[in-house]
């Protein structure tokens, strides 16, 4: 129960963060200014395959899991 309440509190916090548009130093970026954002090293995962491997390793060796995606295999990793 405590966890579900914490989840709800964090969800509202996230939506609050999300609605901080004008207050959060957001600068309008024109389409032709996006060149740098499109660079490979600016991606959330420049190498998704390596990221999947690392995530798999940490999941097997630590107690935590979860990130920006669901799905993906479980394993009986010991």
């Amino acid at each position, binding site marked *: 129960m405590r966890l579900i309440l914490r989840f709800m509190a964090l969800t509202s916090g996230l939506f609050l963060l*999300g609605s901080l548009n004008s207050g959060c130093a*957001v600068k309008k*970026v024109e389409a032709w200014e996006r060149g740098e954002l*499109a660079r490979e090293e600016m991606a959330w995962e420049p190498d998704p395959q390596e990221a999947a491997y690392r995530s798999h390793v940490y999941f097997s060796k630590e107690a*935590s899991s*979860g*990130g920006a995606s*669901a799905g993906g*295999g479980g394993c009986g990793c010991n």
Partner: protein
Amino acid sequence: MSMQKKNKPASKALLALTGSALSLPGISGKAAAADPVTETSIDYQYSNYREEDLPSSKHAGGDVERYEIDTHQLRVVRPWGDSYDVTVDLMYETMSGASPWFIMPGANGEPLQVMSGATIEDDRSDILAKVRKLYDNSAASLSLGYSDEDDYRAINVGIEGEWDLGSKQRTFTVGLGYSDDELEPTDGGTTLYPNRVTSAEKDSLSVYAGFTQVLNARTTVQSTLSFTRHDGFLSDPYKEAFVAGNRVQDNRPDGRDAIAWLTRLRHFVPSARGALHVDYRYFDDDWEIESHTLELGWHQNLPADWQLSPSVRYYSQSQAFFYAPYYNSARSDGFASSDYRLSPYGALSYRLRATKKIGTWAFHLGWERYTSEADLAIKSVRVENPGLVEFNAITFGISRHF
């Protein structure tokens, strides 16, 4: 000479023309949300993971040599028709080595790790396929995965949607995932391991939602919250705990609820020709495990299409409420586990990756060194689990796009 006259509202005609110009692919290039995949790409990666031997001071029996894992991965991404793309990920790994079995107290009461006697040799195959459909301002994807090992089988399914919330500067993502796992531990119910379960099941359901925001032409930030519920057999069938002088099967609650909050930042520094990555994850579950993960990375562009990326990762977790290295008396709820993965500790890892591009090919070589210690945890730890792991991993990859 400045570009625009100041203090003058843009003319209607100019706004209309600019708006039209933005829909031209040559002008807008890639969008923040839902980038269409325009070319086929194939990636292969080989990784070798090797854990350090258990130090003799912590060792009380069984093999000191721990895990070594060789992993091969193959990934194919290709566009399909006008508005779809498909991704297939294959993974095949072979594992060998001993793993922690149970902990017993030494002469002075210090916890000592007993490793499994026989070296485990196992291999695992995993396939994940994802189909994504792109719309004007959104995308939806469906993924299906299957994982197979000698003693373990899992099927998972996931769906995800992302929406552009306005001029491609803010994106909202939501997803749902379900996994169904079956275990058939080797040597379950045998004379050697009479109390080891012969077959068991568990499933997991997770939901997540997040925002991505472009802050300026060089900075983006993303925050995602996920909730997962695990149900079923969550104990480790190969581990035991030392309870009041006797060995008992690792026994954990049959449910676990967890939340994870991941926030990340990407910032490009043009004068240095490099990008800064900052990732922070907060994790909390109803086993009372709370963890913090902070990762900092720098991606440095170098001449001749080389790139060097050093990074460092700090991790700290608290213990599960039912964990103990060993027990003087049984718990009233019957739970028992001395698995180092449920113990309190911190971990620090250093990584270095080098990438080289040649035409449509790319090569990368990476190395990571990971160490874990009770001293590295945020809160002080009284007793360190002797089974904490240290490993080195190297990866090598080849990619080609068409």
